[in-house]
């Protein structure tokens, strides 16, 4: 995944519909130079990736996934200089849709920077039951 590398994302634990991915602080990802706070867009990219990874590792087994919709709530600015870590959980899967929620924190893990909920497509094997 080229964009995964472009953002310097690092994989944490990925299993059973749960995924952890983190992203180091990088000045290129700043949204507001006056404060040095990371752009909401970069946090969105991290949350989207982590959510997609949670769908891919769900035990039901999916060949591929794409985001249908994603809602992100920004609770507070991430502290400049700190690594941002996202945790996502794929908590329900139907034949065609996966439901995911995710949380992003910086080094203060008690107060989330952002949360997200999203739905993702489920691509089953070709020729499988539709």
């Amino acid at each position, binding site marked *: 995944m080229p964009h995964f590398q472009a953002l310097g994302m690092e994989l944490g634990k990925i299993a059973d519909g749960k995924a952890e991915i983190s992203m180091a602080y990088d000045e*290129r*990802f700043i949204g507001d130079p006056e404060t040095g706070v990371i752009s909401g867009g970069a946090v969105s990219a991290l949350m989207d990736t982590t959510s997609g990874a949670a769908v891919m590792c769900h035990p039901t087994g999916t060949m591929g996934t794409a985001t249908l919709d994603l809602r*992100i709530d920004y609770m507070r600015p991430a502290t400049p200089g700190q690594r941002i870590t996202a945790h996502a959980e794929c908590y329900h899967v139907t034949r065609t849709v996966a439901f995911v929620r995710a949380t992003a924190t910086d080094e203060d893990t008690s107060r989330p920077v952002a949360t997200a909920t999203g739905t993702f497509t489920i691509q089953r094997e070709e020729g499988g039951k539709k």
Partner: protein
Amino acid sequence: MSRSRPEPVQVIKQRRDAALTSLVDGVPYAKFLGISFDRRGDELTAVLPFDEKLIGNQMLPAIHGGVTAAFLEITAVIGLSWQMLWNDIESGDAGGDMTLPRMPKTIDFTIDYLRSGLPRDAYARARVNRSGRRYASVHVEGWQDNRQRLFAQATGHFLMPQRDE
């Protein structure tokens, strides 16, 4: 009653372009993704030229959903700031070396992915549906080759920067 003479077109254009440039330069992440803005009068179109690093799924290939989210969100933030600044730009209070007000802060952002992002240039336009003293609601549309076939749309709520307080 005489009206003051309208300013020469070059002066107006220079001031509008300078304001837009300083606004976009204020978001390093926009530069990282390669986003620029086309301006016609007060209308802005965000442009995201295709680049290999924007790919999320190499099999399809498709633009990363996170890139699409970031592209639409930056379009919304710049579009909202641009509208906030417009009167200052026109009256000449804002220009080349002006001090920009603080950026609006995203409260929430909901992205609707309508079709996968092709390995092509992408465009987006923001419409400020409500802009109050504290909160604003902005809708963004993103498309690629065909303006009628959106590949993504989004709605976001923003906390407005407090001015003169």
